[in-house]
């Protein structure tokens, strides 16, 4: 939130539009410029915004900064509800994790998700061009959105529909050019490549710890994504190749591969906590079309548990509530040594269970699953936080 606020304040106070050091893809910058304009207007009219506790953003300012994400969540609800996926719509919109990310923390994953969902709904209606547009925008919000687009283009090439694949690449390239042009015009392409693109290829110069199971247990720093990211890529490619042979429709193979992609990128890549939101809408849509109520229920439970884990083990309650990263209000549940390792192990368990629900025959959701996760959490807590086996 501090980063969003700083870039918007500098634009509306000093007139500086800074794409050279903006730390991520610029779509969210554009959207926040639009949303923040109303805040700038009321500020110019004399509105005095209070600062609450130790937050880095003012109260109303924070609402305007989060507005694109909150509107995106509402949009996903309407998109899913309109396409008769009412259960999926409700389970997404009322998912604690989506509420936490968009309304409390202020991450922009839901902006990527709305275009991702729009793309899949277009694909379901066999409107590949609209799907290409939606996936391109989604990918320009967060790179994960490009995954289904790559599969669609790959399928066109596999079936030797060269003209179609060129059209898809042309649409994606045009949208990307327009979106990224301001970065190039400001001479920020070197920063963009070194500071952003190389991070996701695992060849960034900055050695950072991340939340993946490998980093948490081995204590290793990586130059962005760990080298294991290619395992996730191979799993997605294999899933797509196997499923596309069984059907003439693109929708289910792309959806299934993307769902598994979202799951395995959370295991084999940087595994940022907010990335746990990616499998939720995809699993809900997959559950809807394959009539898996168990999977839909588990996706909801997955979100609720992910909220608890992210809130206590990666952020700390003090950060979201009071703006204090080192203040912990839930006693032994947060701020302990080994918290990231406990988080990594428990989320790994959650993700593997989700894989089971996606790949196995339809099964009912049972409360025993929650008990199983509690067992994994407590075991991880004992061995990694109390005994500290990863430190020996």
């Amino acid at each position, binding site marked *: 939130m501090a980063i969003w606020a700083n870039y918007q304040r500098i634009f509306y106070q000093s007139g500086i539009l800074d794409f050279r050091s903006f730390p991520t893809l610029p779509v969210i910058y554009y959207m926040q410029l639009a949303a923040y304009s109303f805040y700038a207007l009321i500020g110019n009219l004399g509105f005095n915004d209070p600062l609450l506790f130790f937050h880095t953003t003012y109260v109303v300012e924070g609402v305007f900064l989060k507005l694109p994400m909150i509107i995106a969540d509402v949009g996903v609800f309407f998109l899913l509800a309109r396409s008769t996926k009412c259960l999926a719509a409700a389970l997404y919109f009322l998912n604690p994790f989506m509420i936490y990310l968009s309304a409390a923390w202020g991450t922009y994953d839901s902006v990527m998700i709305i275009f991702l969902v729009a793309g899949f709904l277009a694909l379901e209606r066999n409107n590949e061009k609209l799907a290409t547009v939606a996936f391109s925008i989604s990918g320009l919000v967060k790179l994960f959105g490009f995954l289904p687009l790559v599969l669609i283009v790959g399928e066109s090439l596999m079936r030797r529909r060269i003209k179609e694949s060129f059209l898809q690449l042309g649409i994606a390239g045009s949208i990307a050019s327009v979106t990224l042009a301001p970065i190039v015009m400001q001479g920020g392409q070197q920063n963009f490549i070194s500071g952003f693109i190389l991070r996701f290829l695992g060849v960034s110069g900055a050695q950072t710890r991340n939340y993946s199971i490998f980093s948490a247990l081995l204590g290793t720093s990586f130059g962005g994504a760990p080298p294991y990211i290619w395992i996730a890529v191979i799993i997605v490619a294999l899933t797509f190749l196997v499923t596309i042979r069984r059907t003439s429709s693109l929708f289910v193979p792309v959806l299934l591969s993307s769902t598994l992609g979202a799951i395995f990128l959370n295991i084999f890549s940087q595994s940022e906590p907010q990335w746990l939101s990616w499998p939720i809408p995809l699993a809900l849509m997959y559950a809807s079309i394959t009539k898996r109520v168990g999977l839909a229920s588990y996706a909801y439970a997955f979100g609720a548990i992910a909220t608890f884990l992210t809130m206590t083990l990666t952020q700390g309650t003090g950060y979201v509530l009071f703006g204090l990263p080192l203040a912990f209000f*839930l006693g032994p549940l947060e701020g302990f040594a080994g918290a990231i390792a406990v988080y990594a192990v428990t989320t790994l368990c959650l993700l593997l269970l989700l894989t089971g629900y996606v790949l196995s025959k339809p099964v009912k959701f049972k409360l025993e699953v929650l008990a199983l996760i509690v067992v994994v959490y407590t075991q991880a807590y004992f061995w990694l936080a109390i005994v500290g086996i990863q430190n020996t």
Partner: protein
Amino acid sequence: MKIRAYPILISIVLVTSVLTIGLRGTTQQTTAYQTDSLQNAHSIQGVSLGKVLWSADFNATSWHLSAPDMTLARLQLNNSLELNVTFANQPIPEAVEVSRNANLSLDQNLVVFAQLAVSVGVHYGVRFSGMTPGGAPFDAWRETSELQHRPGRGSPENITANLASEAYLANGQTPVPGSIITRIWFYVEATPGTSGEFSMKVASLKSLSLQRTASDSHEISGTLEAVVIDLDLPSVSQNLFQAYVGFDILGTSNLQYTPFFMNGTSVLAQGFTYVQNRLTTYEIAVLLPNLAVGFPPFLPEANSTAVIIVAKAGEISFFKLDSLSFKFTSTPLMAEGVVDPNVARLTMIYYFLFLFVTPVAAVILLSRAFKSES
């Protein structure tokens, strides 16, 4: 009446576009500030190791051995120092130390370099102490330094210590001019329950001067331990939020470096540790106040503001500064603060109701309300 989505969407886009363009740079409240500071970089200096000013002799008269009663220790001095220690299984930690006198001036900005090998299973460290011109003794080591309690690896290691920097970090103040380091200690320590024979072999111990080479452009070459970018920044009333340094860098294959933003001897911000990129020489480093936990391996000048790129491993052979910008904020990220416990409790309860209870209850109620008749 049918609601037409496209006209509404176009109207929203138009209104927000007009507001965004029209309100650009108009807000009076000053809560953020950004400066492009490339023109404020008034000199770039390369820091490299200079000539050897002192080299320790390894003769029996110079070194003093000190060991607890229950520990058998043997010191051999023959062009190198070899300390063999037999630790008995004890319920308390044990340490054996060897020390010698020295006369190393802190005014000369000296780096002590030692090449040594210590057995696996014990820890070791090196300590310094000195004297001010007024005769007041001082320590030039601290418990949390990387030079203390290092695990023995069983293979040769090189360790370096900047004496002025160590003295500053140990005492929280720059050394009094004319102060000298008068004694150097090496120790081998064992945790409770450790038993067996262990050794420490010091093959070389010397001190070298640190020399600075200034460049009249934004680039510098050499065999550099660090690059210092001296800045002449205007004073800002706000707090530092982020600093971005863009540069081209080349170095030895094992080069690892960390950027620091310093005001005198205060670390205002620090970056991540970077390795030399295989695909490009260009790097954009972000420096954040909340990452500032380290310290450069030499003492920066007291009245200077500088970005310092420090080679943690390997050496920098080429550096060219491309861009430099600083972002400031009136609402910095605070690590700690006091919140009234009652307010905290009530907020937590509301938070859990908002985040978990309300949505879960709504989902359960909705699923029951729309349950299929069949």
